């Protein structure tokens, strides 16, 4: 199979499309150009950085470095979840609970997939472990960010409904049921839709990348299915765990709504 490698020129040419979009945004006063350019720049730098890190990790396989790199990925994901919240939990709770949920779901599933299913010669071989963990973390992070945002902002908006349900003798679980269900749904919908439309509407990014890089389509498809199942399960478990912790945090032992535990300013 012959592989076409991209040159720096290829990427620069493509980046002109982003610049054109930015110019349109400036002319039409859409206010998007700044975040667009920063995001594009961030993506390029971050991806090259991880590329160099991976190259170095592949060359010198050392479990300690792997732990450090995956730890940094996890902490960055936790920070990202918080920065996407309209009304995050006050104090360190939001960060700790979402990081713990991601750790529980993404790390356990990655280790499981590596040791039980893919079984590379060296189970933590960075060629498999880092991309897999990255995929799982990224998707779990999205799910958790969406559902926690939904949980806290809906609770804020519907505080009076919740209180009235409590007045009628409902437990905190009952009074929050509809909001929690909706938050779970919101967090899971991207993964479910991703599976439902895969192959028909969109060719998933990973599979496309693999095929472009020269893999036989059926091999790429098998990996893609594996990944889809893993990321759906990973974000599902992660969302479930973080909502469980989050909804507990919203009440005290006397089933009183504790709104001071989420930040007042959106």
């Amino acid at each position, binding site marked *: 199979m012959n592989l076409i490698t991209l040159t720096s020129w290829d990427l620069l040419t493509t980046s002109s499309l982003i610049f054109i979009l930015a110019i349109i945004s400036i002319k039409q006063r859409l206010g998007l150009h700044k975040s667009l350019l920063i995001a594009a720049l961030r993506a390029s730098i971050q991806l090259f950085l991880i590329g160099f890190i991976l190259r170095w990790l592949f060359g010198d396989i050392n479990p300690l470095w792997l732990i450090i790199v995956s730890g940094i990925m996890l902490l960055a994901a936790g920070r990202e979840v918080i920065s996407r919240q309209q009304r995050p939990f006050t104090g360190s709770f939001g960060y700790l609970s979402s990081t713990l949920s991601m750790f529980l779901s993404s790390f356990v599933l990655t280790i499981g997939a590596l040791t039980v299913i893919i079984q590379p010669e060296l189970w933590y071989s960075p060629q498999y472990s880092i991309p897999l963990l990255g995929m799982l973390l990224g998707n779990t992070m999205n799910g958790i960010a969406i559902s926690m945002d939904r949980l806290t902002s809906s609770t804020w908006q519907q505080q*009076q409904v919740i209180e*009235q349900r*409590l*007045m*009628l*003798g409902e437990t905190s679980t009952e009074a929050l049921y509809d909001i929690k269900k909706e938050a779970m749904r919101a967090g899971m919908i991207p993964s479910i839709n991703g599976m439902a439309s895969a192959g028909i509407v969109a060719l998933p990014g990973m599979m496309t990348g693999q095929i472009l890089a020269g893999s036989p389509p059926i091999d790429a498809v098998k990996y893609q299915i594996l990944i889809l199942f893993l990321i759906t399960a990973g974000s599902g478990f992660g969302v479930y765990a973080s909502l469980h912790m989050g909804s507990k945090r919203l009440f*005290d032992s006397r*089933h*009183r709504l504790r709104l001071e535990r989420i930040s007042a300013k959106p």
Partner: protein
Amino acid sequence: MTVLANTLTTKNLSVFHVGPINITLHEGECIGLSGPSGCGKSIFLKALADLLESKGEVSLHDQTNTRIDAPEWRKKVQLIPAESLWWFNTVGEHFKKPINKTQLQLLSLNADIEQQAVNQLSTGQKQRLALLRSLECKPTVLLLDEPTASLDKDNTQRVEQLIQHYLKENNASALWISHDPEQLKRVSTKLLAMTNGQLEPA
């Protein structure tokens, strides 16, 4: 004096700027509570229903509220807020059992109102239905926050009668907030006024 089963007492109850308050609401008693808006009447009721963290003690008969599960406590010491809220589509979904037809009739509400969509109800209908929704839990203490605020004269009378009837039937007691002095004279056995977070005889 023996304390009857449905007697509510507070010992140095305070929350935010309200209190410390010591009152006894005897079984069968209905205390009328007045005071300017924002003086803390509703906060006081919320504290009694254990919806706000407070200092001091609230007890029913001889049991302090901390010894009873919070949801159970709130079923017994039922707060009925001034503005009723609804979260399902139809009226009936908010009730555990079919609504008592006699009570509906007493409040001049249609017998088939159960099937009606909540967003088709008037504020007055909602307020009357919210009362029935709360009474379904068979509370022994009613904390009424302006229960007739959005009602006309006839319906106000109907609600007053229904509540008084309920109190008598169930040996229940009530704390009744109102901005209408005439109403409080009609319904209550004792009058209190709240100023600056303190209760005084009115």
